[in-house]
């Protein structure tokens, strides 16, 4: 090979690699990390992308150079030189990729083990997924339940998952970590948030017709704010005042995601309008209190015309304590007086 051809080959390679690198740098590829795990995943991502850009540049340079340099004239019927192989070259391009993928494998295994290693003073949260909603409960705080994932900053968090129906998958893009939630298994996921903010929680495993709407938010707050939230919520749930306790149950179980209820300030329209419960009860010929309770515990017994059957989870009868249920019913009924 002549020196000139090496120079132009390298030149094309630099240009191709430069374009690929520009594509990598100009677009915002990864969300700004909000956990230590995401930070490590980002490192691994850019480590592998760099290797990929180099390989792509080599291949692109070889293709473009060949097209430019070895293109035959239309009337050229001659053949190329009969080269059948080159053992040394073949060993080189077997060995170098082997070394590169080994490097990728080793760094990945290290990142993986660091991401899975729990820190001290772990906060454990039980996550329940069902078509099409998330619920988070805090076993250290009397199984306080919340429809949004509240997290303290800079603390190791272990999520333990339960699926009630089909497979779901928990993902917060800013946290990097992801875990399928398989019925019958209880997988765990480790996250150490390191940035205060509000982030989307997304279901990433096709779980049925409402899959795209199976979203909630994760809120990372300072440890002090988190403690305050925990205490405030625990107090509200245990409050003798049914309005306060009922409102906490309403909010924490995500009722507002589907229902309009003026007292709680929610306006969603997927399920029946809870400001009209008295009218519904009359239509169903049931006393108001019993009607509301049955509708929560066994929602398919009576379906208000105009709304779909089987959408509301049928699990509140078991997931809510009797006290919580009483408080919720009082709250819903009382709201209309």
């Amino acid at each position, binding site marked *: 090979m002549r020196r000139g051809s090496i120079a132009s080959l390298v030149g094309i390679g630099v240009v191709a690699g430069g374009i690929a690198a520009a594509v990598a740098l100009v677009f915002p590829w990864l969300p700004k990390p909000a956990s230590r795990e995401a930070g490590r995943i980002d490192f691994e991502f850019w480590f*592998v992308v760099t290797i990929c850009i180099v390989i792509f540049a080599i*291949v692109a340079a070889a293709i473009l150079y060949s097209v430019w340099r070895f293109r*035959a004239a239309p009337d050229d019927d001659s053949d190329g030189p*009969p080269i059948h192989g080159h053992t040394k070259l073949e060993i080189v391009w077997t060995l170098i990729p*082997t070394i590169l993928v080994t490097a990728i494998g080793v760094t*990945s295994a290290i990142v*993986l083990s660091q991401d899975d290693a729990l820190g001290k003073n772990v906060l454990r949260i039980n996550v329940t997924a069902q078509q099409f909603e998330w619920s988070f409960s805090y076993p250290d705080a009397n199984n306080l339940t919340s429809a949004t994932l509240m997290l303290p900053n800079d603390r190791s968090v272990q999520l333990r998952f339960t699926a009630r129906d089909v497979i779901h998958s928990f993902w917060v893009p800013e946290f990097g970590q992801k875990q399928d939630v398989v019925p019958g298994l209880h997988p765990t996921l480790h996250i150490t948030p390191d940035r205060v903010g509000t982030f989307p929680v997304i279901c990433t495993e096709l779980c049925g*017709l*409402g899959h795209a709407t199976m979203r909630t938010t994760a809120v990372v707050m300072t440890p002090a704010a988190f403690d305050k939230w925990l205490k405030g919520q625990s107090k509200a749930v245990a409050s003798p005042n049914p309005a306060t306790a009922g409102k906490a149950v309403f909010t924490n179980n995500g009722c507002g995601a589907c229902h309009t209820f003026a007292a709680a300030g929610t306006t969603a329209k997927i399920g029946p309008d809870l400001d009209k419960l008295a009218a519904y009860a009359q239509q169903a010929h049931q006393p108001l209190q019993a009607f509301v309770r049955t509708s929560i515990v066994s929602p398919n017994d009576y379906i208000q015309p105009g709304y779909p059957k089987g959408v509301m989870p049928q699990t509140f009868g078991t997931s809510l304590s009797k006290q919580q249920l009483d408080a919720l019913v009082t709250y819903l009924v009382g709201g209309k007086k």
Partner: protein
Amino acid sequence: MTAMTVEHHEMTPRTGGRWSLLYRAGLIRGALGFCLLGAFGFGLVVVFRWWGGWHPLLDMQVITLVSLLVAGPVGFLAGIGAFDYWVYYALGFPTRPEDHSGHGARTWRDYFRVNTDHKVIGIQYLATTLVFFVIGGFLALLVRTELARPGMQFVDTQTFNGLFSVHASLMIFLFVIPAFAGLANFVVPLMLGAPDMAFPRLNALSFWLLPIAGVMMLASFAVPGGAFACGWTGYVPLCSTHEPLGAIFFNQGVQWAGASSIMTALNFLVTIITMRAPGMTFWRMPLLVWANFTTSLLVVIATPFIAGSQFFSMFDHVMHTAFFDPQRGGYPLGYQHIFWFYSHPAVYIMMLPGFGIMSEVISVFSRKPIFGYRLMALSLMAIVVLGFSVWAHHMFVSGMAPWLRVPMMITTLLIAVPTGIKVFSWLATMWEGKLHLLTPMLFALGFLSMFVIGGLSGVMLGAVPIDIHVSDTYFIVAHIHYVLFGGSVFTIFAGIYYWFPKMTGRMYDERLGKLHFWLTFVGFNLTFFPMHILGTEGMPRRVADYAPKFAGLNMFISLASFGLGASVMVFLYNIITSMRNGPIAPGNPWRGLTLEWQVTSPPPIFNFDQIPQVVGSPYEYGVPGAQHAVLAPSPAREVEEVGVP
């Protein structure tokens, strides 16, 4: 008696009474067979349910399954005559071992009959798969139409989920896999110097299972509750106990397509092992033959696993078994393990034949021997072996045993090495060659560059931490399309253009071919490259609605996808007009050395007048006086050859 039967059969195309269409093998008898056996299946279900005291007597699921999806199609196959020979044999009627009436196609009608000629079957395969390619592409455009803007505009979620599920199933099971089988069907026996495949009647049966599978998957749109909507992966329990009737159309469609694949692969294996021309050792086989040999090994070993997974899933659905139902002790991840034990090797089933096409095209259009022939063949075998040890990299976030992740990552990353060897060897084949940039070569170069991007994003996905972040996002959608469109579909286009003169006896329009390439290449990149970014930024796949911040890129992708769809029209126009009016093709327009180019275009009905004698490697371009094979050695030519030093 024998003579009379033969006479009768030879006469049937022209004579017969008013009712002969009903009993003569063909599509009409096929429809009749479907109805008769479908009715029999219906009766069987009713009688058994009545006898067993089961209620309700008319269970729609069971009746649909037994009558429409199993018995009916068998009746159709019997009706079109796929079993005629075997039935004659089994019943003791005279069979005609020397009967070649099923060979060759005289009119277009012959392509709608059971035909045992591998060349006719190859064309049948390609025409059928192109129809499903167009339908599958149309479904994809509907998906992109809905995704152009956030929120729901055109379809409801049930329809949307059905659209992308059927799109993927058609493209995989009814286009990529069988299109390669079609190309190989036409070419492999020719390359081996054989008159046909080893089992021509099995070959015909394999083909006729395909339209059944495709129609079944499409028909699911028409059943109550809508098409199967759980993705082509059909994960349980969503697809078993939480889906309406449409899901079993997927379960059964996969069975028919899978059975077709397995029978074709067995046919290829036996053909390649036993029917090579004298002198053609394994190390003298063209790499396309090697590619189909290794692919067939994969199909025969792996495909029974997806059959098993779909049977179990369907049993859970229809018969209320509990293989995968966690509430009754089933294990949902068991499905995923069995499914991916097929579906990862399936990626190579959809890629290795393309590798074979690339080796032929790049060598011929570079006018150079393939670089490192033996290593090229051995790397195919390495991919086959390694391909069975990587399935769980689809399950890094599935909740399987955590210790499985690192070993699976290592095998996944290692499989990049033999793939890399192939890419570098193709580059070296082109080096210092005489490149002719005709349409097949353009698609080959497009394949090389796009497949490298798909392969590299595959290495990224092999690294567990990266995979955890991008699993089930649009990054996966981008990756699979770079591998299966930029990889497989580009090689299918290259193969169709390359062998078009051989198949039809006419040349395609070179300018339209180049236009098709550039439209496809640009449209493909504009459509699928931005999906990488969508995925890493946080857009999950298989959603009908998405966050407003992704609106700009999605609109861009949708517009680009319509351009990509339009490029297929150029291709269809080119092949349809060229097939009828293109210039007559010479026997060997590309000056190739392999055996299929040494016969006329299209080839004679039994391929070779006399069995060729293979004397050397198929890729000796640039070696003076080199020959791959000697055909029809007439005494005169032998003398002449002896005379030449």
